[in-house]
């Protein structure tokens, strides 16, 4: 299939600004894919992702599984002979995909939202609540009973209700959400 190649890619400018990388140093060696931990769950290899960024393929990139399947293990980053911070690139892509109005929320987005919501409210996550709200939200079944019992027995999941934080923490969160502008000023 013939694809267009553009010399100026708005996607590349955006990603480079967000992730503070220089994608022009990529020489398409494929070292990142060779070591990648999650490649079997991806549809494009990290090398291809970088090429797609250069080709300004917004739709493909933002709908690809790769950006959500990346587990940020940083192996690619460690091995990259061009010193590209691929994990940061993936982070930037996720951020762009999330901020797109057309983006359809997937399981990963639901999880991130819930996780951050809990941190905002309780100051930390509560695994039991997180698991339940996630399966409600993403319409996925709960983990098998065997696993839940195992978690409870080994105290991996807290049975106690989440503790509520004081006013100071909520105030901090509020300030942080406002961008921390007049903090300490």
């Amino acid at each position, binding site marked *: 299939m013939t694809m267009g190649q553009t010399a100026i890619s708005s996607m590349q400018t955006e990603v480079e600004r967000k992730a503070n990388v220089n994608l022009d*140093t990529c*020489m*398409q*060696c*494929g*070292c*990142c*894919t*060779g*070591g*990648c931990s999650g*490649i079997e769950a991806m549809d494009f*290899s990290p*090398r*291809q992702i970088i090429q797609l960024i250069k080709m300004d393929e917004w739709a493909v990139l933002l709908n690809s599984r790769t950006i959500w399947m990346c587990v940020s293990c940083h*192996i690619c980053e*460690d*091995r*990259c*002979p*061009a*010193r590209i911070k691929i994990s940061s690139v993936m982070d930037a892509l996720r951020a762009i995909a999330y901020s797109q109005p057309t983006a359809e929320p997937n399981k990963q987005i639901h999880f991130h939202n819930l996780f951050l919501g809990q941190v905002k409210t309780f100051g930390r996550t509560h695994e039991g609540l997180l698991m339940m709200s996630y399966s409600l939200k993403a319409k996925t079944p709960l983990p098998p009973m065997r696993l839940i019992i195992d978690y409870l027995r080994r105290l991996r999941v807290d049975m106690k209700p989440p503790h509520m934080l004081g006013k100071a923490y909520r105030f901090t969160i509020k300030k942080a959400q406002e961008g921390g502008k007049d903090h300490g000023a």
Partner: protein
Amino acid sequence: MEMLNQEVLIIGGGIAGMQAAIDIGASGRKVVIAEKEKTLGGHVKDYTCLFPDLSNGTALVAQKVAKVEAFPNITVQLETEVSDLERVNGGFKASLTKNSASETQNFGAVVIAGGYGNFDGTKYGEYGYGRYPGVITGIEFEQNMGEILKRPVKTAVFIKCVGARDRSKGMPYCSKVCCMYTAKQAKELKNAHPDASVYVTYMDIRANFKNGEEFVRGVMEEERVRYIRGRVGKIFPANGCLTVRMEDTLKGVPQEIEADLIVLATAMVPVNSTNNLVMKVGGKVDDNGFITSLPLAESTNPMEVAKGVYYAGACGFPCDVRESLNQGSAAAAGVLSYLQVNGRP
């Protein structure tokens, strides 16, 4: 009129240094070769086979050594290091250290042929060099060729660009000769084990030598060595052999190859032993640690580092044996013309 001391000091008795010594020695001038090893010949004496004509490196070195020894005006100082070098009255004063006893001598000109080092494969943790016995470097392959070719090999993978073209390891340059020596080693391995599958992973094939491209294509077409484009991500042991993980970037498919033998084509790296001396006499060393010659427009000889100082061989930049010999001769020509013009008071 009293002639100044017009002896020539050659630092390093490798193939380039010996060639320079022979050419200067033939003109009747006195030459001193300072070699820090126990024998002359540098790296080339360990190479049984040189690309692309598959001639014998050991024999080449033996021939050069015989020539050097045949000249009465060439003095070879083995196990000697040049610890200091400075300019004195248009000439040079060098301290030659042997067994921690140093003596000073005056010279008219200096040829630096300090040679090169080999990249340390252990710097790549993911390739497991030093951890897994199946992973060796190209130099080891060259040195123990007989033993390695006798190993039962079913699948071998040659990995190129180990320590070259890698900014994260601080090695941005291309080591130039790895493409060729890897092709040659793959050919030898395939000749020894015709049934083995031999793969070479590459990024670009830089066979920039006379007959180089033809040689590499011949290895692919006649020996049926498979070249896969892509850089290896990691190597790990599984099921009694080593699994190589990489992406075939021409297909865009991640792959696994189970191999018994993995050869890392390690790059040529600069040895910094002579860099101090070069800087002391006004020469320059580039960012990678290689000696830089004067800009072409300012110099009379392409090998000129500073006035009266010349370099030859891989201390300037990675090069093959033929190029080293050429550079040795070029440096000799530079020294001779320099001494002819500037050597008199």
